[in-house]
């Protein structure tokens, strides 16, 4: 980190809000909420709301720390150059303190209001994203996305543990689904924005290993995701509504991944159309899969899990 953004005016609250990556947070909140709602226990609405709020605040804190550390890299990429730090609308110390404050506050509130196991997993997820992924892996290995994907996989696990107070195979299956979903999701994005990553020296797989290797890896993870998505059904934690939805969604995901994995680029008008379609569908996939889990739970009730 070499540059220090100079901010003359006090930072607007909207820039602090932008620092929490609200769009990423929406997916985190959604999967965390699904983990909480799919758990086989009734949760007091206030405590459920508090648990989700803590997950959201923790994710926001981790995102702020990520942007604090990567301000120089963000300045070099078109997609991120307008963020508060590279845009010079906030100083780094404020971003760091904001990130640390949100992270510590979320863990403390989770521990006091919900339980210390959920708080400990929340703390691990924040450290995993801010330190293991952002500081350690992302600048060093093209497998950064694979291991870093663990950070995004924590919310349903935290939601489930916040509701039940213990870890079972079912929340671990939800963790595994997001873990194996992350590489094809991010690598399909990296395929069509790879010039930006190359410019700032981030060793994303398409930059380091090339497009063919990335396409193969996307396909491998999509193949693995299909049986993994059915795991909650096989474990008895979900019923036929989820099973049919998981099979359908994962089949479409695999079909789109096949088009990305087996193609050789020719002179099309939009040479990255299959990659963009896979990326767009991957977001719908995760929302729909977890929505199906909750719908299944409400449809059949939780009694069969007891």
């Amino acid at each position, binding site marked *: 980190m070499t540059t220090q953004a100079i901010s003359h005016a*006090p930072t607007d609250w909207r820039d602090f809000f932008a620092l929490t990556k609200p769009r990423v947070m929406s997916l985190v909140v959604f999967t965390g909420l699904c983990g909480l709602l799919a758990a086989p226990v009734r949760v007091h609405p*206030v405590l459920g709301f508090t648990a989700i709020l803590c997950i959201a605040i923790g994710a926001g804190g981790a995102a702020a720390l990520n942007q604090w550390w990567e301000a120089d890299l963000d300045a070099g990429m078109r997609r991120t150059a307008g963020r508060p730090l590279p845009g010079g609308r906030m100083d780094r110390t404020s971003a760091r303190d904001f990130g640390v404050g949100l992270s510590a506050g979320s863990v403390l509130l989770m521990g006091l209001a919900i339980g210390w196991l959920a708080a400990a997993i929340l703390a691990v997820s924040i450290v995993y994203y801010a330190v293991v992924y952002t500081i350690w892996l992302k600048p060093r290995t093209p497998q950064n996305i694979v291991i870093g994907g663990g950070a995004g996989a924590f919310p349903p696990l935290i939601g489930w543990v916040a509701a039940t107070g213990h870890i079972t195979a079912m929340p671990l299956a939800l963790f595994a689904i997001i873990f194996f979903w992350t590489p094809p999701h991010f690598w399909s994005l990296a395929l069509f924005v790879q010039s930006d990553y190359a410019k700032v020296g981030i060793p994303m797989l398409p930059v380091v290993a090339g497009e063919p290797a990335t396409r193969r890896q996307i396909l491998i993870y999509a193949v693995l995701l299909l049986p993994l998505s059915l795991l909650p059904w096989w474990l008895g934690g979900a019923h036929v509504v989820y099973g049919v939805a998981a099979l359908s969604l994962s089949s479409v995901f695999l079909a789109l991944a096949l088009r990305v994995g087996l193609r050789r680029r020719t002179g099309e008008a939009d040479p990255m159309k299959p990659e963009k379609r896979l990326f767009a569908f991957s977001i719908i996939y995760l929302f729909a899969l977890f929505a199906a889990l909750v719908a299944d739970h409400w449809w059949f009730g939780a009694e069969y899990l007891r």
Partner: protein
Amino acid sequence: MSLANQPEPRDLARVRRSRNRVLALLLAGFVVLVYFISIAKMG
């Protein structure tokens, strides 16, 4: 650092005021949340 880069005092006041309002709302929300958490934990 030239004077041309300095924001207008009116803009500074506006940003500070909006920040203070948001902070006040968040603190009030936190107090309400702690109240309801206490009720829920006792119940």
